[in-house]
């Protein structure tokens, strides 16, 4: 129990002194996850929008598969990506294993199903509202997609945050494909795993607290952006 109290003290101390090692790890964590989320959103929003607008045989199957992929254990995904990027694997020549790029790739594969599924969910509601209106204008499917994505922008912002949360907290996949290499691929979560295995529990907890603080900061920033715009648009 006193570990937890200790942890807070250590956390604030590290933050106050702007500990160099800590800053390096935090920065890499944020880079990796933010980039992964940005790319996942671009891909995922279009998948979600396309699924909400187009009707074709096999659509239901795709939706079921995407929903199921949300439950893919990260460590399994990490293993798959490792096998792909390993020197003995099909993409080995790219030499991406044990680099931040590999971690970004793993996180993109992990979050895109989540973002797609949630985006589809959000857009379905908008689609119901706007369906007759769009059809009365004879909009092309592409025009519908563009309009829906813009109309749903606040909901989609939340979807993006959900994706970010999943990415920043992930440890299994990034450990395998990143290797937790000091000064290269060590991020918050893998550092926490390392400190735990070294028995320095208070420090591990402190890192966890700091991770949560930064995550809150990101969420808060996005929500501030959202509500300032929202006031202008909605009743």
């Amino acid at each position, binding site marked *: 129990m006193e570990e937890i109290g200790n942890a807070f003290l250590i956390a604030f101390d590290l933050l106050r002194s702007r500990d160099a090692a800590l800053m390096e790890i935090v920065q890499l964590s944020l*880079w990796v996850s*933010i*980039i992964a989320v*940005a*790319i996942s959103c671009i891909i995922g929003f279009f998948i979600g929008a396309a699924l909400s607008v187009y009707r074709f045989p096999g659509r239901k199957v795709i939706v079921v598969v995407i929903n199921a992929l949300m439950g893919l254990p990260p460590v399994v995904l990490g293993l798959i990506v490792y096998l792909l990027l*390993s*020197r*003995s*694997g099909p993409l*080995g020549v790219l*030499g991406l*294993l*044990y*680099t*931040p*790029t590999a971690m*970004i790739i793993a996180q993109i594969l992990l979050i895109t199903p989540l973002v797609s599924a949630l985006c589809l969910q959000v857009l379905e509601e908008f689609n119901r509202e706007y369906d007759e209106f769009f059809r009365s204008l004879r909009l092309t499917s592409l025009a519908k997609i563009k309009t829906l994505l*813009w109309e749903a*922008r606040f909901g989609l912002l939340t979807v993006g945050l959900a994706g970010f949360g999943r990415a920043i907290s992930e440890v299994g996949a990034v450990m395998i494909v990143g*290797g*937790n*290499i*000091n000064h*290269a691929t060590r991020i918050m979560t893998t550092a926490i795993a*390392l400190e*735990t*295995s*070294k*028995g*320095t*529990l208070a420090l591990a907890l402190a890192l966890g607290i700091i991770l949560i603080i930064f995550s809150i900061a990101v969420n808060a920033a996005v929500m501030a*952006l959202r509500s300032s*715009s929202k006031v*202008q*648009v909605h009743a």
Partner: protein
Amino acid sequence: MKMILFYRLALTMSLVVFANVVMLAAALAQPVTIIVQSTTSTQNSGLFDFILPKFTAQTGITVNVVAVGTGQALKNGRNGDGDVLLVHAKSAEEQFIKRGFGVKRFDVMYNDFVIIGPKNDPAKLGGTVGILAALAKIVQSKSPFISRGDDSGTNKKELQLWQKAKINIVEKGGSWYRESGSGMGATLNIAAGMSAYTMSDRATWLAFKNKAGLKILSEGDPLLFNQYGVMLINPSKHPHVNEKEGQIFIDWLTGKEGQSAIAAYKLEGKQLFFPNAGR
């Protein structure tokens, strides 16, 4: 108005992506790096943090250590995901060389294993030196024992010892024998949490910060000798291996500077690794 906001966001995103790409490109263009596949116990002891900067200062080569279980390190080596292997499972290493995955095996250093257990010592090991006798006592008292259970160097040694003590652990091991399937640190955490016995290498134990109510209850038996070896991953099998730099590292490690660096690494005044490259 909202479009402006949207475009601003999109612009920021693109800048972020662009910056990352530049960063990565810069990273790729950096001075030579080698990847060493090693074990979590070696990593956790803090040895690498001590000796590697010396190596880099001398040669300008950066060493990236991927610390995983021995089994995984060997597998990664087989796949060519690295340049050098530094583990402590001699017979597995020799197999590795024999099957052509590695070039040549060199002794680097040794330390020893110890039996850790709860202070109140239910199995009454009381500092028993003979490891085989100690293990027999544990089995007899059915005291909780945490095994690595992960095909690591430590795990292989543990299983060898059960064999030598003529104890069929698969049979005799009841609910008191737990396999953590994890690294040394995680295993020690479990032992601390369950007040159980376990076998650990001395270096990891000394560096471990969650000792809780545990202490060393058996040590010193020559059977507990723990040898570390280093190998270059075979460039003929994996042409991309940094053969030159990898060999420089191996030469350094087994040569005068590396060996004295290893000997100089102390934790709480105690030396954790003993160089024995014999070159």
